[in-house]
C-alpha cells in the first residue's frame, strides 16, 4: 500500500491538493506578515477568518454572487482589523492577549450568526476550477498548478506583490522602520499609528479572504469553528518564514503538502491511525520552528507599544 503513494496519479494528487490547501494559510500569513513587520502581533487571525468565512458563505448563498461574498468577507475582516488597531495602537493593549479576545469574539459570533441565520449545514457552489489555456495542458505540471480555482492563483500572486511592497516601495520601508525602530521612524515624520492602522486593517482584510477561501472555494460549507485553529498556524508560519513573504510561502507549502500527504494516506487506507496522521503537520511545524527561529531575528518592536514622547 505504501507503494500506492509513489504512483504518478497519487503524487500529482498530493501536490495539487497541497497547492490548494496552502491558499488560506497564504492569505492569512501574508496579512500577518505586514502586521508583524510593523511591530504588531495579531493573534486574532483565526477569529477574523471565521467571520470572513461565515460572511462570504452567507452572502454567497443569499445572493448567488461569489465575488460579493469575497468583498463582504474583506469588509468584515477589515472592520475587525480596525477594532484591533484601535485597541493596540490607541489603547496600548497587550497584543497577545487582546488577540485572544478577538479570536474568541470571532469564534463565538460566527457560530451565533450561523445558528441564527442559517441553522443547518448547507453547501454552496464555490469558485470553479479554472483551466489556464495551454499551461493546464502541460502534463503533470499543468495538473498540479494550472487547474485551480481563482482564489488559489490570487493567493500565490500575493507573495511577489507582498515582497515588492515590503522591500521596494517607500510604504514598505516605512512599515519596516516602524517595526524595527518606531522612535526613529517617528522622528523622521513617519506616523507610526497610521502605518500600524494600515497593516492591521490589511491583515484583517486578508484574513477575511482566507476564511472566504475556505467556505466558498475549498470546502464550500460553513461549520462552527471550521478553521479549527488554522489562523494560529498562519501566525506560526510568519515566524517560520522569518517575516519574509517567500519564507512564508515555503512554510505554507511545506505545511499543506504534509497535510495533503496525510489526507491521501487516509484515502489510500494505509494503516496509520488517522488521528496520528493529522498530528504530523503540527509536530513538523514545531520542529521547523526549533530549527529556524533561533537563527533569525524578529522585528525589534514586535509586540511593543509605541507612545509618542513629548
Amino acid at each position, binding site marked *: 500500500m505504501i507503494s500506492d503513494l509513489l504512483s504518478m496519479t497519487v503524487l500529482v494528487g498530493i501536490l495539487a491538493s497541497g497547492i490548494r490547501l496552502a491558499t488560506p494559510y497564504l492569505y492569512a500569513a501574508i496579512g500577518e506578515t505586514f502586521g508583524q513587520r510593523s511591530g504588531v502581533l495579531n493573534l486574532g487571525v483565526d477569529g477574523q477568518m471565521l467571520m470572513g468565512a461565515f460572511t462570504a458563505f452567507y452572502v454567497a448563498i443569499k445572493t448567488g454572487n461569489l465575488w460579493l461574498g469575497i468583498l463582504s468577507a474583506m469588509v468584515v475582516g477589515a472592520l475587525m482589523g480596525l477594532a484591533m488597531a484601535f485597541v493596540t495602537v490607541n489603547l496600548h493593549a497587550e497584543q497577545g492577549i487582546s488577540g485572544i*479576545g478577538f479570536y474568541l*469574539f470571532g469564534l463565538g459570533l460566527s457560530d451565533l450568526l450561523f445558528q441564527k441565520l442559517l441553522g443547518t449545514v448547507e453547501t454552496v457552489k464555490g469558485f470553479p476550477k479554472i483551466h489556464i489555456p495551454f499551461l493546464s495542458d502541460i502534463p503533470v505540471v499543468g495538473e498540479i498548478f494550472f487547474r485551480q480555482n481563482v482564489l488559489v492563483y490570487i493567493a500565490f500572486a500575493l507573495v511577489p506583490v507582498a515582497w515588492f511592497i515590503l522591500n521596494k516601495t517607500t510604504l514598505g520601508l516605512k512599515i519596516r522602520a516602524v517595526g524595527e525602530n518606531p522612535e526613529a521612524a517617528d522622528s523622521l515624520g513617519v506616523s507610526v499609528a497610521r502605518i500600524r492602522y494600515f497593516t492591521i486593517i490589511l491583515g484583517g482584510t486578508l484574513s477575511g479572504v482566507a476564511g472566504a477561501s475556505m467556505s466558498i472555494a475549498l470546502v464550500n460549507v460553513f461549520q462552527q469553528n471550521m478553521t479549527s485553529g488554522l489562523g494560529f498556524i498562519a*501566525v506560526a508560519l510568519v515566524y517560520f518564514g522569518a517575516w519574509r513573504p517567500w519564507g512564508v510561502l515555503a512554510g505554507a507549502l511545506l505545511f499543506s503538502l504534509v497535510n495533503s500527504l496525510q489526507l491521501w494516506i487516509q484515502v489510500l487506507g494505509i494503516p496509520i491511525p488517522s488521528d496520528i496522521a*493529522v498530528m504530523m503537520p503540527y509536530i513538523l511545524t514545531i520542529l521547523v*520552528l526549533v530549527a529556524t*527561529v533561533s537563527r533569525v531575528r524578529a522585528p525589534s518592536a514586535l509586540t511593543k507599544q509605541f507612545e509618542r514622547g513629548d
Partner: protein
Amino acid sequence: MSNSNPEKWFPKLIDGLLPVFATIAALLVGAVMLLLLKVNPIEAYKAMWDGAFGSQNALAETLVKATPLLLVGLGICISFRGDVINIGGEGQMIVGAIMGTLVGITLVDWPGWAVIPIALITGFIGGAIWGGIPGVLKAYFNVNEILSTVMMNAIAVQLMNFLLRGPMIDPSQAELASKIPQTARLLDTFRLPRWVPTRLHLGALIAVVLAILVYLLLWRTTWGYRIRAVGQNPDASRYAGVKVRNYIVLALILSGAFAGLAGVMQVYGVNYRMITDGSASGFTGSAGFNGIVAALFGGLHPIGTIPASILFGGLLVGANKMQRVVQVPSALITALNGLVVVFVVSSEIWRRRRQKRRLAEASPDGEGIIPVGTDQGDTSSKEKEVEL
C-alpha cells in the same frame, strides 16, 4: 496615608472595578446583539441569571463549571506573571486527564483513597509535561510559546482521539460500530466525593485551597518572586544572578500542571470517564481558554481569580438556560468572553496612565524610574531579550 483622603482610595477603587466595567460594557454590546437578533435582552439576561444563580442546583452547577476555570486560571496567573503567554490550557487539560484516567482504569484493584490522590497527582504531572515542552522550547530554542502551546493543543487533541478511539476505548464501545470516543467508566469508589444532591464535588474546595497556595507561592516564596521578577524585567533579573531560562520553564510547567489538574478533575469529579466528541472543547468545554479570561478578569491574582471563575462559570451555565428559554445560541457567551478580554486589556491604559502620572510627580524632573516589583502588566517599558 489616611484612608479618608478620596484622592488616595478612589483611583484604587476604580482600578479594582475596571474588570467590572469591562464586563458591563461587554454585556451592553451583547444586549445590542440580542436586539439585532430580535430577542429581548432583559429577558435573555434574566434567564441567564436564573440559570446561573437562581437556585441551589444552579449555583452548584456554576461552581462545578467554575472549578476548571479557577484551576486553569491559577496556572495562567503564574505564567502571565512570568510574562509567559500560555495558550495551551486545552492541551494541558487533555493530557492531564489522559494520564489521570489511565491510573483509574488500570489500578482497579486498589482502594479509592489511594487511587484518587495518585490520579490527581498524575494529572498534575501530565499537564506539567505538556506545559514544560513549550517551556523548554521557549527558554532554550527561542520558540515563541504562544505558537508552540497552540501546536501542542492540536497534538493533544489528536492524541486524545487516537487513545479514546483505540487503546483506551471503553470495551463496551469497542464492540459497537458507533465507537463513541470514551474510556471505561471509573469505579464508584474512585469518584471525588459529592455534595449530594448536586454535582458539586470536592474538586471545587481543592481548587480554592490551591488558589491560596498559589498566592503564597507567588508572593511569599523565592521561586514566586523570581518568576515575577523575570516577567517584569528579565535583564535586571539576569544581572541579579537569576537563571532566567529555568524560571521560564518553571512558569510553564506550573501553568500546565494546574491545567492538567483541571482536566483530571473533570474525569474524577464530573464525568467519571474521559469522553469527547472529537474536538478539544468536547472534553474541556473550552475551560483552557476561558480560564485565561477568568484569570485576566481576576487581575492575574489567584484570590481574585476565585470570584472571576464563579462569574464566568455562571455565564456558561446561564448561557445554556438562555439558549433554552429565548433560543439564543450559547455561542453568544463565547463572543462576550472575547469582548471582556478585549475590554479588560484595553482598560489597563487607565491604570498605566495613573501610575505614570504618579511617577512623574514623584520625580519632578520627569526622569521616570521604572519600578521593579510593582504589579503592572506593561510590557512596553522593558527590553526583553528572551522574547522571540
